[in-house]
């Protein structure tokens, strides 16, 4: 991974996510490492989707960002400016309704080739080798219009053939299995990792390389993925942060540098 670029991989992930958000979206962020989706939402509001609604889990509607933090929650807890408070119960209510929320963002201990996400159990359910923290909101993977995956580690322990436990529902077993489970929302749409961007094949719903970050290579991606990715004939380079994006990130959204620094975070 090339680290001589002017931007960092979290910044690359942020702009990839920001570009996919839309004016009509009701976006929800909050949780560990939600600095990345949080910055993406703030960037989108400035450049791509000013009318987007941003909810922070159990806190505010359209809060002012006080200081970007590794946590989505603490990024706004000190905020004293927002359109409204919107408590956890109300967010939960919304998250139960098919399509009422537009997007949510998941990372997790494991992600598989169909975009399922595991945050509960590594190993056997009865005798786990590791117990994860669990998952607050399965609902958002089922009833929210679309989800984004943003694994902060791209290696074979994270990108696995099959998750040991489905905490956040992706495309399940691919093909029409999500629909057959009674789920009508889109599910995982994009996966932005430190190495590249991935989408899901329209029919098989298997993960497909969409672009490779400037800092990485197709080989690095393949070598660090624990399942067979769909690789199109032509794989473009991820469009790096534009001057506008870069400028806003550095000066307004993340002046303190949460998205840079700490080289060891990968």
């Amino acid at each position: 991974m090339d680290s001589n670029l002017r931007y960092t991989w979290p910044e690359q992930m942020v702009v990839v996510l920001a570009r996919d958000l839309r004016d009509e979206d009701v976006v929800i962020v909050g949780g560990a490492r939600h600095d990345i989706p949080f910055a993406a939402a703030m960037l989108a509001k400035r450049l791509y989707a000013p009318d987007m609604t941003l909810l922070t889990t159990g806190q505010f509607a359209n809060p002012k960002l006080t200081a970007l933090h590794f946590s989505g929650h603490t990024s706004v807890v000190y905020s004293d400016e927002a359109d409204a408070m919107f408590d956890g119960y109300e967010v939960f209510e919304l998250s139960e309704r098919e399509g009422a929320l537009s997007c949510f963002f998941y990372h997790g201990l494991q992600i598989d080739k169909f975009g399922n996400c595991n945050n509960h159990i590594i190993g056997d359910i009865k005798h786990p080798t590791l117990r994860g923290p669990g998952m607050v909101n399965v609902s958002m993977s089922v009833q929210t219009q679309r989800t984004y995956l943003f694994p902060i580690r791209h290696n074979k322990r994270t990108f696995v053939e099959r998750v040991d436990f489905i905490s956040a529902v992706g495309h399940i077993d691919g093909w029409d299995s999500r629909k057959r489970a009674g789920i009508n929302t889109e599910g995982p749409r994009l996966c932005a990792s430190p190495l590249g961007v991935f989408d899901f094949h329209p029919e098989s719903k298997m993960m497909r390389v969409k672009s490779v970050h400037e800092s990485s290579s197709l080989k690095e991606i393949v070598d660090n993925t624990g399942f067979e990715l769909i690789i199109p004939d032509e794989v473009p380079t991820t469009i790096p942060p534009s001057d506008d994006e870069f400028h806003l990130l550095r000066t307004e959204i993340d002046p303190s540098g949460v998205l840079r620094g700490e080289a060891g975070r990968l």
Partner: protein
Amino acid sequence: MDEYKRKSKLGDVESGLKLISDGMYIAFGGHVFFNKPSYFVREMVKKGFKDLTISGSPYASYEFDLPIGAGMVKKVIAGNCGFEYLGFAPNFRKAATTGSVEVVIGDEATIVGGYMATAEGIPYHPIVSIKGSDVAKYTTLAVEYTGPFGDRLYAAKALQPDVVILHAPQGDEYGNIRYYNSIFFERIMAKIGKKVIITVDELISNKKVRSQPEKTMIPGFLVSMVIHVPYGAHPCLSTGLYGHDEEHLKDYIERGRASLSGANPQPFAEYLQKYCYEPKDIYDYIDRVGGMKRMEELKRKWIDG
């Protein structure tokens, strides 16, 4: 950080009316005769919609009785419809007694239960509190069933209005709404409409809203359109701003009552003419109901307590 340009949700009555069409299911907010979107309802009457299904707060008054009297309503889903201590709702009573309008028997549990189902994303909401009553026997809003643990329950079917219409004392152009006082059922109603229109007496700045987010009772993203209508609740009251106009309401009821037998529809027809069809705008209407002098008197109720 928030120097982005958002799209305003400010509309006028004309654009609000465009969200409504014949045959729709419309729900009105407020409670008893508090915070009713009265001016918008009168403009609906002027427009002459047909075959509406209406519901709202379990405690309805003017906003139900007026469109029923104007012949716009096919079906009413009501807990209580009346003018409380001022008397019964004349057009509702007439329509319900003669059967000219379908009155669905319901109550808080069957109606709010139906709203909860929609808000909570489920096809029905279990309720228990109607057992033993004739509401349980005759309502079409809920059915008795046995739950997965053997409990005898009633399933209140999800109710989702095409348009929910509320009135509030204050709001900003992005639909962030404040109330000075209780919000009754407003918050759940704002959550369940396919479209939500809110008329506000006072338009306030988003800057003011954002400085005290805890005062926002309905967040803008739930709202489709905000319409600035000073005294938009008159003759009903708007909590924190002005009291209800007892004299006007008594006159309304009296006119309705006089027309009740069908022998003399004149007094109520005159009401429609004078207060719904003729006024060019809210200011013209205010002139017809006593002008600013009367409005100042109604404001005193809040000031004097």
